[in-house]
């Protein structure tokens, strides 16, 4: 089974460890993993800024890069939403290459969904002692239905999950929103951090690096140097 890893631009730039964690999980489960070296970004920043043409150009680039794969997996619900939902339901509606994007969407999985629903893993290499709280990122949750999969995997690694109030509420990241409307974004993030603190968990875990950088940035700015901020792939891969 040939699986293409879509690393995501944020993981590539900022937290390569998440990419290697994903790689370890996929290879550990017996997948032949390929990582196209020309990949950059799914195009969502352009799409959400109103740049439709650049979003389409990048989607076509991604399509070409992963054409030969049986599956494509990304450690992000947000980028996966872009490639599974935005392309098919909006960007390529009425375009000749729509069927190709439908095929890409059908073989594209967010990492936790792939591990649970396709590979049906029943063990993970990581061991985690302690309590975590899980933040549901918006795109993964509301566009793709990512909810129980990462929790199931975290529990497989031994983590106890203390649910926060409003786990499904947006952390305020929203890509360029976090810069364009920084004050509102910061307040939304502070609300999220309040919920996290109230659980007393030692780690906040999520599945989208954008949200995690946002939450980590606010926790650190408000003096919390201890709460770990982790991608679930890092926890369950034991990286």
């Amino acid at each position, binding site marked *: 089974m040939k699986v293409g890893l879509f*690393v995501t*631009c944020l*993981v*590539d*730039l*900022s*937290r*390569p*460890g998440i*990419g*290697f964690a994903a790689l370890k999980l996929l290879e550990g489960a017996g997948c032949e993993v390929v990582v196209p*070296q020309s*990949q*950059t*970004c799914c195009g969502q*920043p*352009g799409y*959400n*800024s*109103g*740049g*439709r043409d*650049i979003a389409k*150009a*990048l989607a076509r*680039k991604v399509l070409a890069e992963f054409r030969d794969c049986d599956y494509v997996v990304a450690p992000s619900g947000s980028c996966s939403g872009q490639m599974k939902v935005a392309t098919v339901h*909006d960007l390529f509606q009425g375009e000749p290459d729509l069927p190709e994007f439908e095929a890409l969407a059908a073989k594209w999985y967010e990492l936790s969904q792939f591990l649970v629903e396709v590979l049906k893993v029943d063990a993970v290499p990581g061991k985690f002692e302690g309590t975590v709280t899980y933040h549901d990122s*918006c*795109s993964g949750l*509301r*566009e793709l239905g990512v909810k129980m999969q990462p929790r199931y995997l975290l529990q497989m690694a031994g983590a106890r999950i203390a649910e926060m109030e409003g786990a499904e*509420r*947006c952390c305020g*990241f*929203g*890509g*360029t*929103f*976090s*810069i*364009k*409307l*920084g*004050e*509102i*974004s*910061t*307040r*939304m*993030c502070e*609300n999220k951090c309040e919920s996290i603190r109230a659980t007393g968990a030692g780690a906040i875990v999520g599945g989208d690096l954008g949200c995690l*950088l*946002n939450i*980590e*940035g*606010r926790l*650190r*700015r408000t003096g919390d*140097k201890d709460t770990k*901020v982790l991608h679930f792939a890092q926890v369950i891969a034991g990286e």
Partner: protein
Amino acid sequence: MQVQSMFFKQRASEKLDDALLQGNMRKAKGKFVDGRAKAVAEFGVWEEVRSHAAKVRDRALANLDAYLLEFEANATRRGAVVHWAETAEEACAIIVGIARDNGVRKAAKSKSMVSEEVNLNEALEAAGVEVIETDLGEYILQLAHEPPSHIVAPAVHKSKEQVAELFVKAHGKPRLTEIPAMTREAREALRGHFLGADMGISGSNFVIAETGTTLTVTNEGNADMVTTLPRIHVVITGIEKVIGTLEDFATLIRLLPRSAIGQTVTNYLTLTTGLKMPDEADGPEQMHIVLVDAGRTKLVGGPMQEMLRCIRCGACMNHCPVYQNVGGHAYGWVYPGPMGSILTPVYVGLENAGDLPNAATFCHECAVACPVKIPLPELMRKLREQQFDRRLRPWPERLAIAAWAFAVRRPALYAFLSGIGARVAKWMGGREGLIHSLPGLDGWTKGRDMPAPAGRTFRELYRQRALERR
């Protein structure tokens, strides 16, 4: 209402610092969101009815011209006069004209967002007509000289204590502390106005083509006074509110109160068809129905048409994390939250409300909550596309996107630049790995640190790993 939407950022900033407002908003959020969730869960067939309701609204919009003419014919047959207002100014002129022709001195109003949209109160007051808002929330705001901050609960931004203060000033009675007592006091103050008004002005949640019916969905009963007691009843509503049949209404009314505040049905649900009949005891002698366009037809047949499905329940704002934090006044016009972030730029011009379509993280809570399945985030994105194409966003933002777009399509250049970026940013993060301020990104770093990158990109490390394995 004067458009202040160009100042969204600044106004939002003030609201974030308003501790009283923040407390009031927090209380309201729980009531709206939890109430709706419970009502939806109890309903059982929510998604089915929701899909049907979207179709009902789409059918109405597809037959807008025919349904409106059918409505006009049926309402006229029952003795009402139907007026067509292409603009806000025309709507006001029509109603001021009716008031003048009939020597109206006092008008009692029930809640109507369209009347806020067209500035009806100001127009009537300028013509010497005293206007009394009789919806409790609107009454409070009239005393406070404030516009509504929510389309269903206009005074949601006010606390009990703030209202008590306003009542002391307006009613000249001792300060009250309990809500039932305050409501009683307002009711006593309003009762005389209902009886003394020459004109009653109401909105209409829908207008029904097959019967010529207008209707109000309320909890206070004030609308029933307004529509039956004064000798003239004026209905003002938008042309997009027309639906085909009573059956369609039956579908939509199952969703409206549940979406709005988690109510199965409102206390009052009043359908008004024409004038007082000879054998009837109550009702007006004249009924005028003013159907307002004011930009709505511009949406018909275009990419934003789905917005016209809106049934004004307020669920989108109740569930919007941006609205929850800044409140309705920050949006600067009649319609706040996600629906307002679309309607305001569409009705008053994108150049006057440029931040509104951007005031969203696309978290999709609004799209999930909307009872008529309006794809609110997608419509906001379409407005962003218009801004992009018309170069309406500030130049540093446009430059940043252009630079990003250039690099991201050139893998070798991108790999080179991201490699440098990762190293520089790691260095900037110092020993603790946190960047405290970044030029051009102060929107982020004012309230948050930027966690520094690890220093080398995944791309580099992966290539290195591949070489080592060979």
